[in-house]
């Protein structure tokens, strides 16, 4: 017997990712859908639909005005393929939000069951929210957690509840509508999302999770997440997102505003797996008071184009931030991601640690912006980014920006761009692994420090995604 392998067959062949587990879609049959485009009429309809308080209606109209004035950013990936005239900004199923899983309509329930959402809740979460297109369809928080005063609900309900004034004070305060064009868009048409309030001293020891599913074709999702973690409190919040693939552009322009109180800690984890027709133009920002800490964990796998740079404002003395991120761009993906941090308080520290993988002509760009204000005495900041390119068609760029106005700041920056070494592949293959498995193992290893930061289910999901992305023909 002779073992032979054709030379071509021996090469790792790369096919498009099998997204069947995310790609199922439901018909829009009984959905209420506003016409495509963005006009004052549409904005007012959304406002009416949601029964907005007057200040919110004004915020929407003001935002629309700004949207029409502000130019599309002239840096970053081209957004030519995105035409707001062909995006439906509001789509909802004819259903009300439920706090009992059994009351969620069958079809939607099916969707989330397939994505493992209620299963995860039963196992390891303190509360779950599930958004389907423009509206939350399910929200529930464990009774013992609720009893300690933790609020976890949709923004719309919160606007009419106990914390209405607080929301008025904080809503689009960190990310004002004039911040950039898509913040303005968000302000005009936002819908859904979560409000979380953790009272002083309350430590929620298991995570809360929101899952965002955009099912409708040619639609936008504009959920707003507002989290307030009071003094000495502690929270881990997880968001996941996915969508089936369509041949027209979909848009996600969500907004996340995080308020971290004195000596409080908030960990915000995201696994984003939008389909590859998605423009993911999301804004996230956190402000941290004295001794507080924000931890971002961010995995970006999906979307056609992503622009995502979570920002941390280290306002209080001794406040800290850590950002751990990974992006994986395959064919027809341009993932422009990174992080921003502003040091204002004394003795503040920040650590940005990112990895990117590009393959099959995918483009990964890492942008970081670090500013240290004059007031931020003895601040420490470190930025580290590593990129792995799996073939010569792919691209990886690093664009760091630093503005240091404090003489005694301690700043470090490290960037590495590399490829998988042939020697490493040979070494693993010499122990019996196929070339494809060897490469997949090296890539998962590369991503390991990020998956370690994720809750187990998400770490498994991330590893599956890497495996899917690395999948080729197995002979």
């Amino acid at each position, binding site marked *: *017997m*002779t*073992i*032979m*392998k054709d030379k071509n067959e*021996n090469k790792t062949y790369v096919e498009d990712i099998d997204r069947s587990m995310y790609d199922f879609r439901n018909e829009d049959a009984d959905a209420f859908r506003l016409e495509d485009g963005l006009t004052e009429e549409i904005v007012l309809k959304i406002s009416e639909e949601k029964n907005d308080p007057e200040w919110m209606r004004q915020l929407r109209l003001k935002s629309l005005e700004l949207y029409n004035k502000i130019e599309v950013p002239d840096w970053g990936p081209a957004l030519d393929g995105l035409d707001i005239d062909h995006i439906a900004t509001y789509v909802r199923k004819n259903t009300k939000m439920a706090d009992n899983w059994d009351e969620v309509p069958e079809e939607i329930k099916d969707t989330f069951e397939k994505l493992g959402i209620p299963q995860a809740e039963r196992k390891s979460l303190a509360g779950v929210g599930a958004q389907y297109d423009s509206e939350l369809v399910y929200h529930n928080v464990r009774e013992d957690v609720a009893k300690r005063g933790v609020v976890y609900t949709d923004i719309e309900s919160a606007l009419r509840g106990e914390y209405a004034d607080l929301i008025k004070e904080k809503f689009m305060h960190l990310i004002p509508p004039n911040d950039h064009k898509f913040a303005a868009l968000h302000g005009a048409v936002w819908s859904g999302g979560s409000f979380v309030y953790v009272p002083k001293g309350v430590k929620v020891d298991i995570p809360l999770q929101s899952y965002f599913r955009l099912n409708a074709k040619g639609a936008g999702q504009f959920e707003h997440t507002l989290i307030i973690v009071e003094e000495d409190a502690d929270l881990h919040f997880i968001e996941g997102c996915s969508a089936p693939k369509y041949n027209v552009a979909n848009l996600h322009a969500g907004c996340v505003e995080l308020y971290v109180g004195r000596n409080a800690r908030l960990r915000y984890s995201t696994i984003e797996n939008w389909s590859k027709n998605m423009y993911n133009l999301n804004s996230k920002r956190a402000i941290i008071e004295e001794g507080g800490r924000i931890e971002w964990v961010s995995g970006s796998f999906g979307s056609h184009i992503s622009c995502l740079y979570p920002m941390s404002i280290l306002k209080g003395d001794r406040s800290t931030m850590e950002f751990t991120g990974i992006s994986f761009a395959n064919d027809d993906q341009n993932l422009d991601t990174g992080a921003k941090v502003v040091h204002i308080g004394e003795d503040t520290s920040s650590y940005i640690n990112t990895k990117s993988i590009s393959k099959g002509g995918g483009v990964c760009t890492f942008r970081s912006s670090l500013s240290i204000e004059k007031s931020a005495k003895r601040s420490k900041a470190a930025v580290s980014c590593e990129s792995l390119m799996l073939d010569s068609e792919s691209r990886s760029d690093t664009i760091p920006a630093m503005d240091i106005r404090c003489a005694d700041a301690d700043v470090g920056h490290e960037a590495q761009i590399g490829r998988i*070494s*042939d*020697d*490493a592949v*040979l*070494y*693993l*293959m*010499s*122990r*019996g*692994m*196929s*070339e494809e*498995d*060897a490469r997949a*193992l*090296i890539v*998962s*290893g*590369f*991503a*390991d*420090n990020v998956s370690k930061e994720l809750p187990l289910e998400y770490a498994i999901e991330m590893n599956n995604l890497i495996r899917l992305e690395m999948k080729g023909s197995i002979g």
Partner: protein
Amino acid sequence: MNGDKIVEIKDLHVSVEDKEILDGVNFEMHRGEIHVLMGPNGTGKSTLGNALIGNPRFKVDSGSIKLKGEDITDAPVNERAKLGMFLSFQNPIEVPGVTLSAFIRTALEAKTGERIKLWDFKKKLKACMEILQMDESYADRDLNVGFSGGEKKKSEILQLLMLEPDFAILDETDSGLDVDAVHTVSEGIREYQKRCGGALLIITHSTKILESLKVDKTHVMVEGRIVRTGDASLVDEINEKGFDDYHEG
């Protein structure tokens, strides 16, 4: 000892970047045998190891390699490994994010095509690490990352013990090790021999690693060819006289 024929190499010519390194190498090995390959620097010893494992940078121009009767001259690296070949690398590669233990388990699963029972695996791994006097914590460390030279070599021998190949090539496993480490590694090799009775080809400059092993044959390689083959006593002879007698011209 004359068991089954494990390796048969016939008239092997190998080049690297169009430069011929091996110029017609012949030898065979049987189950349970230990052969030593000696020779001056740059003579093609490591090339032989690389060509046997199938490193694509080493091109076989002519000749054949058979493992357990199967012609593997053109087989990919992983097929050779699955059929029972093992190379202990001179410079083991560091793989961040993959623990030594997970790596060995993945390799075992690739080799057997079966899921390995975690409990049995852990027990065996622990026992093998004890033989090699490796601290247990190494199992959970990233493969070779930050390992000292000695630890990297021990990690190779640990893989040898765990994967139990039929034919193992040890490429200068003893180089750069202190006396104690060489002794430990040598113990590991002996244990492998005792347990699996595979064929061992030991490429070495020194003889310390051979002290506790019973060598069946010694080959001397000079300028890409095996110029002399003898028994264990040839090792001592070379130790005394060096390779001067073998140089051509």
